[in-house]
């Protein structure tokens, strides 16, 4: 049958159905039993992105209200979950280039270099939209589709938030809209989610062109970190920046006041999924960015794949950023720290 639009369509096709460990339960119940209830879940929301029903976040956990009636039992959530069959990744991985960069156009901590990468990719025509995590007045994350560099005048798009953002559900939406490609930024768990989506579904393989990972030790649920900071006397209406450096969590206010405390204090409220995560540098990403390993003001950029290399070359050509030396050995401490969490996975699996 010839198609009117030049795209060949098929009226018969087959879909592989994944296997169920618990035979008489729905796929969501399988996911819940194996990932969510065992605290393996990283809250990357890959399942929520693909679910045609209604997987969403309730409180701090991924849940599916009324799954008894609404779950279509298609198995998509199980197919894309990076931790249903968990293959923990760690280390630095292979890379083409290991450099330090400082954006001339954007200000901020590591966010500036990430913004530079995505905006340059938009300018060179590789992608037509980038997904940015912004925040509202109460520091809850919101997703923004950035299609023009001018849109970055919204200052809340830069800066680290230290709470989870619903990146992947927004990615699904962006993939539907895009003409050329989508670029996204995410923590290592989000990057794993994207790779899993790309592995399973060609639509993501073709349309997600640039995946930028962030160095990540751990992340916090919005409710928990909000309550914790309020107890420390942080006023959200004045808060402009959060940062973790040298074992200290620093919250900066608009009037210059700084609230500092040791990172050990926040360990109690670290999200449970981070306890089993061994990936510090987002090994699967096209390029990953973080502050560790380079001088003050610079961000370390680990270029792993060809698309990211092209973007870096474009930035060098246009001189949008300064580049310098970065030291891979400075990352070793945190890489090993996260690698040490491997033991948590086995004990969790044994208890389930």
């Amino acid at each position, binding site marked *: 049958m010839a198609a009117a639009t030049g795209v060949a369509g098929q009226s018969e096709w*087959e879909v592989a159905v994944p296997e169920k460990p618990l035979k008489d339960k729905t796929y969501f119940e399988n996911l819940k039993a194996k990932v969510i209830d065992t605290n393996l879940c990283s809250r990357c929301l890959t399942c929520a992105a693909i679910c*045609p029903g209604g997987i969403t976040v309730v409180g701090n956990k991924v849940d599916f209200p009324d799954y008894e009636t609404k779950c279509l039992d298609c198995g998509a959530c199980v197919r894309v979950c990076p931790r249903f069959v968990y293959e923990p990744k760690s280390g630095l991985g292979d890379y083409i280039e290991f450099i330090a960069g400082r954006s001339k156009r954007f200000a901020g901590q590591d966010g500036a270099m990430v913004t530079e990468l995505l905006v340059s990719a938009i300018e060179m025509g590789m992608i037509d939209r980038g997904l940015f995590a912004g925040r509202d007045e109460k520091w809850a994350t919101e997703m923004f589709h950035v299609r023009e560099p001018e849109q970055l005048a919204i200052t809340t798009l830069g800066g680290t938030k230290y709470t989870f953002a619903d990146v992947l559900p927004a990615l699904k939406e962006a993939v539907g809209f895009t003409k050329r490609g989508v670029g996204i930024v995410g923590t290592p768990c989000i990057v794993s989610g994207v790779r899993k989506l790309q592995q399973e579904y060609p*639509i993501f393989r073709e349309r997600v062109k640039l995946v930028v990972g962030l160095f990540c030790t751990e992340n916090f649920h919005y409710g928990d970190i909000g309550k914790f900071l309020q107890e420390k006397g942080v006023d959200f209406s004045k808060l402009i920046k959060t940062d973790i450096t040298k074992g200290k969590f620093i919250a900066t206010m608009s009037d210059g006041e700084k609230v500092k405390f040791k990172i050990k204090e926040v360990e109690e409220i670290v999200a449970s999924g981070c306890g089993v995560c061994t990936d510090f540098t987002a090994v699967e990403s096209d390029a990953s960015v973080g502050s560790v390993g380079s001088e003050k003001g610079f961000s370390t950029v680990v270029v792993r794949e060809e698309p990211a290399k092209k973007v870096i070359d474009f930035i060098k050509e246009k001189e949008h950023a300064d580049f310098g030396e970065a030291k891979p050995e400075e990352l070793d401490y945190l890489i090993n720290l996260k690698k040490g969490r491997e033991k948590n996975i086995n004990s969790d699996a044994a208890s389930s």
Partner: protein
Amino acid sequence: MKMKSMKKVVGPEYNLGDKIKTNVYAVGVAMQESVYPHTATVFYPRERKKMPDNFRGFILFDPDKCISCFNCSFVCPANAIRMKEAPNKRYYPTVDYGRCIFCHFCIDSCSGGALKATKIHDVAYKDMDAMFTPTEEMIELPEIIREDKKYVEYEIKEDDLHLKRTKGEDYLFVEVPPPKEIPMVSTCIDPDSCIGCRVCAEVCEHGAISASVEDGGTLRMKIDTDECTGCGLCVKECSMQILMLNKLERK
């Protein structure tokens, strides 16, 4: 630059004979108009102007043809159309005539041909709230008290407007011949990206899409091209947006 000399405009000079002649003509026209008035006024409501067939008036609705695709409410530039849940769990349009700008985009976009135009332009409401017309009131014509015994058509003769009155009532429905249908059929453009959620099979009103699980863990999806009417509901509902309407080419 040399100015042209201006010309003085002088009125015509009438002699007595000319004056009597023009006055008698004027009296003649006045008498003619008093006996057989030559006005362009339509004496509504005793007579109505015959509206052309492409007149955009009150909108009628046929629930049997509606596929609840929401196209009318999406396309409405004035946000006059809201979809409301009917007792049979289907969503049907309602029109707020306080907002409606009578562009009839809804009728043009209606994929099932459920919305129909009429020539009714004179529906009265007591207040703004009454202008909200629920689905039930759109199925039948609104109650009209008709006093008209004839309808009027305009015709232009010798650069002058004339009225042509015909006895009888103007038919207020618009009978538009159904458009020539291009047979469309739903097809999957990216089978590898199908997540197998079977939403398409569930929403299909004609049972054209079947999903069966075979031994060995594969789900076989099939669109029956003979049953598919090309309504596009599955294309709209597909969560991966991989279904597409294509022109049906029969062998």
